[in-house]
């Protein structure tokens, strides 16, 4: 089977108080294992794409749990390397209505953040692989993981593998003192497909929309404003063939609007806007978009509109699913794309 995909990044233990309890009320935590790149891998595996997740895990029960979760979802784990002290953790308090969700990171000195270039045999990993995906989180956690990421991207590029990234700016990371703009610019210059929103573009590359202001707080998220961002991105990164952004309108922590745009250097494609009125779990929303997009671009290579519509519908469904990963099938996504948003019980 062709079209093998590899994603690379950190999987973490997510500890979240049950339901909508605050941290200070919790006496147990729901356990989920996830991370930007592993979530994309799980999405792809659900859509039937052969996919391998590469990371570094500690040799203890908690590291094993993370690997077992990948295996359970049908993601390849043979290229995971073992070592280091600990699995990174993030604590998540789920928001509701006017109370936003809250994340406490506890990921310093994780096995993945201590990864060094040379630990992974990328030539072997990329054998028979068509697509490599990384995100802006990996270079944000430590200098050595930024170096390992660059090593991966260079190897993929040399072997002619299509490269995608989700810029994924995280204000709470980037604490190690690396030059964010220089690191991200070099890594992104190898990419064919770039996913990022206006905040990612501004924080990583200082790119701001010209003319129209970007409105993200109400119902009316203006796709036109992103055209300028996409055009500037294409100029800065000539290898990029497509720049994509999600359009999230945050009416409250429970109600978001959701759409996407794709710019291919010539035209700007848009999707319909979904109303997600009762969010169950928005963590991994962007990852589910990326998973849908990679699937769409691989499956409908001549029809970017269809690929984009698939990505938006997929990630719309993710907001209804607890946990980091999007546990939906191609049929469920295409049904929503086809206009059936009734949420009726299928029987």
């Amino acid at each position, binding site marked *: 089977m062709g079209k093998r995909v590899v994603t690379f990044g950190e999987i973490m233990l997510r*500890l979240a108080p*049950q339901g909508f309890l605050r*941290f*200070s009320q*919790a*006496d*147990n*935590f*729901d*356990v989920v294992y996830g991370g930007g790149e592993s979530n994309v891998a799980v999405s792809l595996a659900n859509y039937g794409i052969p996919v391998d997740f590469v990371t570094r895990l500690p040799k*203890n*029960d*908690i590291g*094993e*749990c993370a690997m*077992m979760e990948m295996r359970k979802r049908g993601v390849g784990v043979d290229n995971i390397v073992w070592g280091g*002290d*600990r699995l990174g*953790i993030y*604590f998540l*308090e789920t928001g509701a209505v006017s109370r936003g969700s*809250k994340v*406490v990171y*506890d990921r*310093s*000195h994780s096995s993945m953040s201590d990864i060094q270039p040379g630990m992974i045999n990328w030539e072997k990993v990329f054998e028979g692989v068509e697509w490599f995906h990384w995100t802006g989180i990996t270079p944000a956690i430590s200098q050595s993981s930024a170096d390992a990421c660059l090593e991966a991207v260079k190897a993929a590029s040399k072997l002619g593998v299509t490269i995608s990234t989700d810029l994924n700016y995280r204000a709470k990371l980037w604490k190690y003192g690396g030059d964010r703009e220089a690191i991200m610019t070099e890594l992104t210059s190898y990419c064919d497909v770039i996913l990022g929103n206006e905040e990612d573009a501004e924080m990583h590359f200082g790119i701001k929309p010209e003319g129209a202001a970007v409105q993200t707080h109400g119902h009316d998220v203006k796709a036109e404003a992103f055209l300028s961002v996409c055009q500037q991105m294409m100029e800065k990164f000539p290898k990029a063939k497509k720049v994509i952004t999600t359009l999230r309108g945050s009416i409250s922590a429970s109600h978001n609007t959701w759409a996407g745009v794709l710019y291919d250097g010539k035209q700007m494609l848009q999707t319909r806007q979904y109303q997600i009125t009762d969010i169950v779990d928005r963590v991994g929303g962007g990852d589910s978009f990326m998973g849908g997009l990679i699937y769409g671009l691989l499956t409908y290579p001549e029809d970017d509109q269809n690929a984009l519509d698939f990505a938006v519908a997929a990630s719309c469904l993710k907001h209804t699913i607890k946990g980091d990963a999007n546990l939906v099938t191609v049929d469920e996504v295409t049904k929503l794309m086809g206009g059936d948003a009734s949420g009726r019980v299928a029987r």
Partner: protein
Amino acid sequence: MKKVVTFGEILLRLSPPSHLRLTQATSFDLYFGCAEANVAASLSKFGLPVKFVTAVPPNELGESSLNMIRSFAVEPVATIQGKRLGIYYFEQGASERPGKVVYDREDSSFSTLRKGMIDWEAIFNDADWFHWSGITPSLSLELAELCEEALLVASRMGLTISADLNYRPKLWQYGKKANEIMPALVKHCDLLLGGIDESEIVLGVPKNENDTEDVVFANWMKSFPKLKNIVSTHRMDANASSNGISASLWNGEILLNSRRYNISHIIDRIGAGDAFMAGIIYGLITWPDDHQTALEFAVAATCLKHSISGDINLATVNEIKALMGGSGGGRVSR
């Protein structure tokens, strides 16, 4: 009444519910605890005024750990600094499968404490007892030095000092052996909880293979002349679900032995030693001239702890006295 002060690192404990293995868990029960906080909470439950000295990060987990301490009416004296609360994962054993601990406590807030950061004089000002354990000096040389700083001030101010040797082979990873560090700390103690197996490895006191407890403990008192009482628990490890437990006390003259309890269905054995420690501190304060009663109280306290989930012994003085008095039938009290 003057206060008891305990000092140590409070950890987040994550445990799969009931007897699930770590690799089966889809949720973790959440507890906060550590040897010294467990002792503090238990003593407070017995009605003694207690302070607990520690360090936690400026985030929701640090705050939650202090809230737990406060819920037991223990006064937290916490340095708020650093990045993370230490964690340990604990998988409950059963029958022939032993319990399992995975530590994840490096780079914790507590590990960033240094000499000079804590105002011991102010803390000990209204106290007359200081308790520490061998876990703190096992974490780093800096923490061993901080422990010594506390002990020097406590000694100078005339506090009674107790310690639980609490030897953990998985700790002591910073290049010093326990017996290179512990003797300088134990010499300040009036009361020590330890076992004869720890004689050489922790205290550096030689022990012959056939030496009995009274011989070994007499040697400890020669090496550490400030010691007045040495206590020890004896676990007859049937398996992870069922233990016999008893205890002994050496007061420099005679070796007292407690009655033996059979604990046939262990709910949670974490914190059992801490429950004993709190029991003996309470016992020696309450019955200063009756060491046998103090010892019986402590062993009954730890016996009850085995029936309680979590790190902390949620047993009251009355419940412990009832068990000491022979009410071991576990009948519903009504």
